[in-house]
């Protein structure tokens, strides 16, 4: 019984991080119709920003929002410089479909190299602000600690916040319109390009949170080769697709499903099968329910 509880808690804990990544990927998709494969790289860079900030300020609770702002700024910068140039030059021919994908891949490589230059490849530490030891109930310790509880609450809060923006505000409407029908949005007076940048900025902030929280929720060690960040990229993407790339609550649901399934595999079967299971899950969803659990039928192919 305890094993089952452990599994659920591990799954939820992991899911909360993946969902941050998934949310940021869905945000980029919904506002600019691009899947940003460099998202995890940008999250990694933001985590390093976080490391520097925590080091200089000494207070994690101030550093976190600041790092998110920096992440947002960097993300907006990338959209402005890279993606717009891409749109101008590479919108013809077979390369058009994959040009953004290749460009974001290149970006990932550049970010890795730059991080390696500035901070080196050895581990750096971000000190977790809350305890990582599981809560104790009498004799037993469960696998949820104050830190992972915070991450969970943070994600829920962020999701609610972003959903409200998207669904209930004019900006949110503008974001959705610019992605779905840019010409019409422009006719309606929306500055489409500015709105797209905004979409990337919000995604950047979410990604930054994902990167930092992932680090402190783990061993606190950060390096360019952290396995956790490749995981973040792939699992964030898979979670987003499972939930439906169009839907923000879907991103969270997808992350939850993924997190629980992988935790079950890890505890009951073997840790080394997680990647394969994740891949099979992705394939299964794409074949059986391609729009994801909470997505609508339209727009999967575009």
């Amino acid at each position, binding site marked *: 019984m305890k094993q089952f509880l452990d599994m659920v808690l591990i799954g939820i804990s992991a899911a909360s991080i993946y969902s941050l990544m998934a949310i940021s990927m869905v945000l980029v*998709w919904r506002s600019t119709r*691009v*899947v940003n*494969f460099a998202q995890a790289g940008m999250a990694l860079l933001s985590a390093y920003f976080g490391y520097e900030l925590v080091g200089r300020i000494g207070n994690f609770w101030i550093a976190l929002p600041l790092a998110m702002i920096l992440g947002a700024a960097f993300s907006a910068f990338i959209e402005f410089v*890279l993606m717009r*140039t*891409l749109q101008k*030059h*590479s919108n*013809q*021919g*077979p*390369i058009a*479909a*994959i*040009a953004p*994908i*290749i*460009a974001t*891949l*290149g*970006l*990932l*490589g*550049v970010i*890795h*190299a*730059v991080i*390696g*230059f500035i901070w*080196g*490849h050895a581990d750096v530490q971000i000190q977790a602000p809350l305890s990582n030891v599981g809560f104790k109930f009498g004799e037993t310790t469960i696998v949820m600690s104050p830190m992972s509880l915070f991450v969970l609450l943070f994600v829920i809060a962020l999701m609610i916040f972003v959903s409200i923006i998207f669904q209930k505000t004019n900006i949110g409407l503008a974001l959705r319109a610019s992605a779905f*029908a840019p010409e019409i949005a422009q006719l309606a007076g929306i500055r489409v390009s500015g709105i797209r940048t905004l979409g990337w900025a919000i995604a950047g902030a979410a990604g930054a949170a994902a990167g930092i929280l992932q680090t402190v929720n783990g061993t606190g060690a950060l390096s360019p080769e952290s396995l956790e960040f*490749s995981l973040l*990229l*792939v699992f964030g*993407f*898979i979670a987003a*697709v499972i939930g439906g790339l169009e839907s923000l609550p879907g991103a969270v649901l997808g992350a939850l499903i993924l997190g629980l399934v992988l935790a079950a595999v890890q505890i009951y079967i*073997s840790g*080394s*099968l*997680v*990647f*394969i299971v*994740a*891949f099979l899950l*992705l*394939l299964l969803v*794409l*074949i059986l329910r*391609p729009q994801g659990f909470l997505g609508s039928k339209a727009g*999967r*192919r*575009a």
Partner: protein
Amino acid sequence: MLKKHPIITFLFFGFVLFLISNRLDELRVYQGATVAVYAIGIASLILLIGYSGQVSLGHGALLAIGGYAAALARIHYESPVWLTFVVAVLAAAIGGALLGLAAARLSGPYLAGTTLALAIGLPSIANQFLILGGEQGLIFDVGPPPSSLGEDFTQYKWFFWISWTVALITLYWLRNILNSRYGRGWRAVRSNDVAAELAGIHAGRNKVLAFTISAGLAGLAGALLGMLLIVSPGVYSLALSFSLATGAVLSGVTTLGGVMIGAVTLVAIPEIALAIADRYGSETITTNLPGLLVSALLILTVLFVPNGPVEQLHAKRAKKGHSSHSPVEISVRVGHKTWSTKK
């Protein structure tokens, strides 16, 4: 010359390589063999992405299938080397067919993401099954060069010969396929699958065929790569998939002609980085510069020369030869989908 007498060109190229291999030192010979392997890998991507319009970020996984199949055939069945290559091609082709079937309904980022997940996931299977050797991998030993070639014929020269013979034959074969009706079929489906269907081409089958052949080529490259290094998850990493995709873009995804550019660049960049690092004597440069150069080159290429240098050259030549006005084009737009006569 290539267009008129392809066989002669290939033979000539092979002869030149033979001459060169006798003059180079072991390091260059080894690197030369690596260029051949990358050429095959990149060619497989050109077929898939450039001609068939399907993007794969995880070709490393298909190379892995080929590598492991060849190594296992050699280790457990002591197959002769040529047979191991055949096994590698078949195994990878089957994998590609399966992937293609799953992928036929996907496009764009979904396909990209799925292949990415495969690239990350497949090597970890090696850790599950003892027979696959885990992280330390398997040794794919093609044996020493035949004694008829003389005492001085080194193992690395033998690798060079094997790799280039296979590469030349493969590229020649691929070139013919791409110029045949299959190639035209792929291009048709890529630019407009509905119109292609109307013209009698079965889009789904066409796409799966592209994946299968591309995978077979990848498997061959994977076996050769395993021969040069070892067959282990570390060799068929995500980095390999990205490198091949980069090489394909650098070569010009839409045409086979530039494949050497990408292959040589991929091998040359670490060299250049090393040379720079030796000059400035910095550890950080050696580790990070190759990655930076490759990625930066990738971004710049996709931004400014998206169809590759060869195609760009052809386009320039075409423009010079014809009138200064662009040809008439017709575009039809329904909703947010556009069909146009411009390629």
